[in-house]
């Protein structure tokens, strides 16, 4: 079966790849593009460790075909930090101990990144519902909820400050 030539815009960079029809996006990211930030936890669309941002929406990349992403804007955890330093959600997860083993963290960060754009000033209850597609086996979640709340505060503060 012929391969499909597709272009993915990953973290702002156009990348040409040839993929099989049956190739899942998570494998293209990890095995072809060597972006191993997004993790494979369950492979059954449950755990959220493979969450990436596609055209402005959080998606579990183990349940989407790479060929469906032709031309899509994809952001992975590798694209969060900039030359200026960590993204606010990364800072907040560090500060609030929002991780232990770290396996779920790339998915948590990418979901938090998108969730805080959907809902910039969430209540704790809204955070719990907004992060419900991401499982963590270590933290007991409370510090993750705290981290998302604090990240929201940082982002809102950043916006309030005049640009330098």
């Amino acid at each position, binding site marked *: 079966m012929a391969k499909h030539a597709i272009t993915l815009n990953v973290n702002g960079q156009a990348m040409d790849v040839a993929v099989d029809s049956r190739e899942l996006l998570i494998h293209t990211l990890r095995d072809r593009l060597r972006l191993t930030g997004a993790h494979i936890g369950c492979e059954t669309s449950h755990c959220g460790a493979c969450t990436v941002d596609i055209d402005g929406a959080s*998606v579990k990349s183990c349940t989407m075909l790479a060929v469906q992403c032709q031309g899509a804007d994809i952001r992975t955890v590798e694209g969060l930090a900039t030359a200026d330093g960590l993204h606010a959600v990364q800072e907040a997860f560090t500060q609030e101990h929002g991780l232990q083993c770290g396996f779920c963290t790339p998915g948590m960060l990418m*979901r938090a990144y998108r969730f805080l754009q959907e809902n910039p000033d969430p209540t704790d209850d809204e955070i719990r519902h907004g992060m419900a597609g991401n499982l963590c086996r270590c933290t007991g979640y409370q510090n993750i909820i705290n981290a998302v709340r604090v990240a929201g505060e940082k982002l809102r503060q950043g916006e309030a400050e005049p640009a330098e």
Partner: protein
Amino acid sequence: MIPGNFEYHSASGVDEAVALLAEHGENGKLLAGGHSLLPMMKLRFAEPAHLIDLNGIEELRGIREDGDTLVIGAMTSENAVIASEVLQRRCPVLPEAARLIADPQVRNRGTIGGDALHGDPGNDHPAVLMALEAEFVVRSQKGERREPANGFYLGPYLTRLDDGDLVTAIRVPIPAPDHGYAYAKFKRKTGDYATAAACCLLEMEGDTCRKVRLTLTNVGPTPLRAEDAEELLTGQTIDAERIEQAAQAAMSICEPAEDLRGSPEYKTHMAGEMTRRALHTALERARGG
């Protein structure tokens, strides 16, 4: 886990998708959100040789009012159903049910059409669409027809759709403005399918029930319509005793399979409880509560 080999086709319009379906017959399958189909393909429960992707067909998305009917494109995502201002105003039971489906990421990809047409007795939209007396608009090379949701579900993964059929939209008669509604779903955890769930649509005339629809999710090989329970309530004053009779009548039609969610007895019991809750909530809402 990776699906078996198949040929991928991205359809740019309904006619093209219908032609591709006709060409590949039983070897072709439509791909909507992929959140039921791709997991099944990974497990080799489904092995289509051709996948026809509907995601590029814009006209299959969106929600509009057409006179006294709501027309919901089959490819409308669950999150679009939740965000829809028209649905919130005209038919709030649909967003209420969608909010109880899976999790935010799954709801970004999963579509109301895929959920309603997959034929999984665990899916939530079928019972809701039955209670709403919705119809599916079906296209094939033979033309267009309509299939009522009631009578559509024949068994697990078995519906009145044939190879070659594509559903373009779901037509929902707009419920009376003062109707009461509820989708009560019992699940073990966020993102789980129902252990049991009940949908109630209710119209009241003072204290008397003018019309009621009661349906059940995941307590039989298909979603179930509790017609005996509806009859017990129609034309009657709804009080605690009536609600209990209706719950018993709903439980009497349950035939759930035993699985990790529980024994048949337990699931039937929960279906009764969900029926009580759905009725109570719908009644409160019909009374303006």
